[in-house]
């Protein structure tokens, strides 16, 4: 993964406009909160709250889920606290709270049992990080494998010893094949060091 570019940008946008929350256009690399999963894994969903109405038709799916699927869900996720809040004439919602303090709110009116169980499973598997557009589908902790480039990395250190400009450093690099002139010169003057094949 390349290092982050530090760019001296000209200010083409008003400074105030920069503070606008473009959450829907956020971009980031994939990551896990608190390096979850690197050495140990802990489920990030800490609390799930189901708010529903006992009478209305919009909460049918929620009521069915509470009857049939909720206990199994709670048993399978001992680290998650499950709260069920009945209310009169309220819209059924699901609120999930995560380890990094963020919360996801979901309106589940008129959802069936299957749909709701799929959504709750999705909330179970999420980390608390917000949804962002991936810049790249991979991420790495190490900034550079081969090491950071510097202007002196591929420089001939012999240039340090002499005063520049020096004709010794002017010739272009040798090519893989010798030229006709070079081949003849090697033959005539017995240059055995040059072992490039024609």
């Amino acid at each position, binding site marked *: 993964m390349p290092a982050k570019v530090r760019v001296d940008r000209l200010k083409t946008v008003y400074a105030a406009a920069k503070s606008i929350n473009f959450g829907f256009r956020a971009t980031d690399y994939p990551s896990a909160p608190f390096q979850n999963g690197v050495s140990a894994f802990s489920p990030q969903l800490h609390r799930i709250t189901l708010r529903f109405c006992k009478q209305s038709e919009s909460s049918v799916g929620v009521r069915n889920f509470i009857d049939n699927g909720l206990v199994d869900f709670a048993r399978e996720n001992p680290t998650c606290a499950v709260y069920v809040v009945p209310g009169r004439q309220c819209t059924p919602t699901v609120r999930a709270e995560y380890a990094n303090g963020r919360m996801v709110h979901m309106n589940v009116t008129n959802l069936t049992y299957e749909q709701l169980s799929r959504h709750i499973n999705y909330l179970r598997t999420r980390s608390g990080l917000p949804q962002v557009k991936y810049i790249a589908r991979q991420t790495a902790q190490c900034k550079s494998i081969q090491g950071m480039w510097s202007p002196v990395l591929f420089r001939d250190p012999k240039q340090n010893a002499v005063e520049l400009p020096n*004709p010794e450093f002017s010739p272009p690099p040798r090519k893989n094949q010798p030229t006709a002139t070079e081949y003849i010169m090697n033959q005539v003057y017995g240059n055995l060091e040059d072992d490039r094949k024609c």
Partner: protein
Amino acid sequence: MASPISRFNRVNQWLLFARQWSVIDAAHQDAKELGVKVARHLSGKHKPIWHPETDCGDHVVVINCKDVAMHGFDWKHTLYHFDKLYPKARDDIYAWQIHEHDPCRILWITTYRALGNNLIRRSHIERLHLFPDEDMPEFVKKNIGNQLKQIIPVARKSTEYTEEERAKFPRIVKFPEDHILDWHAPIVDPGAWKKPRYRKPKKLTTGKK
């Protein structure tokens, strides 16, 4: 700060973004190709950290500009067009005429064109320093920290070969004793050229009347 840089590591940051002064010898090099190479270093595209908005270009000092070369008859055939958008301000000047007047101008023009047709080239070309020979001001010489390789290999002159090397080279043809080499032969004066007198072409006749 996203990731704080320690006082020990900040030097690496300074080195990464340091502006370098490079020198290159233009003798016997093609002006166009050299312009491309120099433009690449002026804009900073030789660096992996390049970005158009990061001002990461280097300074380039070009010496021996008077000895720059062109392919074939380009000195005679290449015309540079000048136009100041004022009346009577248009002109087409040959490359050899420009080079006669200012030996550094041709390389300046080729580098400017190789930088691309954009606004940033005006700041990049400020970092190009051209000198007709190897003389340069002291502050420029002090700043130089790197030498760039040439593009075209400069061939050895025949005067640079020693007598031993000449003797060692095998002879393909054995000349007679009184043979004179081409460049030792006396130059014969052809005399003034005289325009041939026009003669009307003869009509072909069959003999019959």
